[in-house]
């Protein structure tokens, strides 16, 4: 590589990295300025002590866990079945799982509100529990592209047909095969899908706001309009969570590489 090329490379990279560093720096600095003149963690203390933060954050964590469970329940058997019995259906299933990337979330939730309102055949938005359920279903749909791709990639690395036949000849039923043979083998893939789902759900705004549920995303937006420093402390926390989730995905993938027997 020529000197000229090297120089351009460095300039572009440093320009880009500065662009990424500045907002994170600005955010962190601002969140520490709650006390006049000195840096302090006051904003964080205030935020964490806020009962509404605890409530909304707890709600979103709960939602994320329910979404992950739903995602695993729907995606793992489907991806397994498609690989084992219906390989011809794979492009179609894959296409459907990619649709949430094409249809904006705001349009999907718009449909929910009209389709499942109190006067419809399935009045999910009529009760709090029903709305919670609807939100979890919506999140499962939003996470579907990531979950399906992760699990399908995981299944590619194992010999699904042989494992299934071996389990069957030992007398296992489908539930045992899925729960005790297939799932443990694709756990790293499932976990990366799960962490990504967690990162998406925890700060999600559009669905929760329009279904009017007390989640972390809408809370963040609301106090952003009312409080001076707390929202920035919350944003730092949210970024930390995203970062942690991505870090865990890296860790899980690396771990899974080492755990495999060399062929």
């Amino acid at each position, binding site marked *: *590589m020529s000197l000229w090329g*090297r120089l351009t*490379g460095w300039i572009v*990279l440093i320009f880009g990295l500065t662009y990424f560093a500045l907002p994170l720096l600005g955010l962190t600095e601002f969140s520490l300025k709650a006390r006049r003149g000195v840096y302090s963690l006051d904003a964080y203390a205030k935020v964490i002590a806020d009962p509404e933060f605890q409530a909304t954050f707890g709600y979103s964590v709960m939602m994320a866990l329910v979404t992950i469970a739903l995602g695993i329940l729907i995606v793992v058997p489907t991806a397994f079945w498609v690989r084992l019995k219906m390989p011809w259906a794979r492009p179609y299933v894959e296409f459907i799982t990619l649709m949430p990337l094409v249809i904006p979330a705001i349009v*999907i939730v718009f449909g929910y509100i009209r389709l499942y309102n109190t006067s419809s055949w399935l009045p999910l938005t009529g009760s709090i529990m029903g709305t919670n359920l609807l939100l979890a279903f919506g999140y499962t749909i939003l996470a579907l592209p990531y979950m399906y791709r992760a699990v399908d990639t995981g299944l590619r690395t194992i010999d699904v047909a042989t494992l299934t036949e071996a389990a069957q000849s030992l007398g296992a039923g489908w539930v045992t095969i899925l729960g005790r043979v297939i799932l443990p083998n694709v756990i790293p893939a499932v976990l990366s899908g799960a962490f990504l789902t967690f990162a998406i759900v925890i700060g999600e705004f559009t669905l929760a706001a329009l279904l009017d549920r007390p989640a972390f995303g809408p809370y963040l937006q609301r106090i952003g309009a009312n409080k001076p420093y707390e929202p920035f402390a919350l*944003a730092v926390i949210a970024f930390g969570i995203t970062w942690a989730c991505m870090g865990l*995905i890296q860790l899980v993938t690396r771990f899974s590489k080492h755990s495999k027997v060399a062929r």
Partner: protein
Amino acid sequence: MSTASTAPRRRLPLTWLGLLPFVIFVTLFLILPTMYIVIGAFQDRSGGFTLQNLRDLNTGTIPSSYWISIKISVASSALGCLIGFGMAAAVVFGAVPKAMKAPLMTFSGVASNFAGVPLAFAFLATFGPVGLVTLFLRNNFGIVLQRDLGFSILSFWGLTVTYLFFQIPLMILIITPALEGLRREWKEAAEVLGATTAQYWRMVAFPILFPSLLGTFALLFANAFGAVATAIALTGSALNIVPIQLFAQIRGDVLGNPNLGYAMAFGMIVVTAIANIVYIWLRIRAERWMK
């Protein structure tokens, strides 16, 4: 349960039953809601077929909101592609130490998922009225962002610069494998035939990369076009873009016509669908070279 697969005598075509839970779930919570909106866009208030809603999209503030949404999406995807390409190229072609690749990819994974409300706050804290950069420029150079440079975070360019924070990383994530797919042999072959570096880029590398570049541009476009939370948290309702207007419509029927709301949502689907079809089609073309 296991009889369906082990019974050798007569196979009833029951294998599709395994897909039933998935199909039901997706139908109920993805396809039916979307169909409802799409059909509603072609209905009048009494349920009869009409094209009036689509015609009405051309009234009031709706055309301008589509226009500004498209402009922001184009600007942020074009800049995202350009800067992302530069950063990926710097790492892949060895202008900077190869060791920087892994951290850059990891960071891109994080940043491409760091959209929404927190991202808006990060930019407010940096370029907002009392942000880090705003204050730094004012105190040290006497430059006031809004007055002297015409830059406000609550404007077209403000939103574009903010969107770049997830656009650039997405570009890096997608284009890096494509850049790594450029074989050394192609460059060597071009050199043996007497090509200069510029000629190699213009006549070999660029035509191969072109579908990837354009496809990624389409994906970034759809990505920006559907972004709701970042825009709402950043500008409130100051900037009249499609997702914000649709959000207000869903909350309180501000257009005064529910079916016009459906038509607006339908328009969003059409725009993102076109962008995604372009992406998928070009990716298939690009993959011919990446085997």
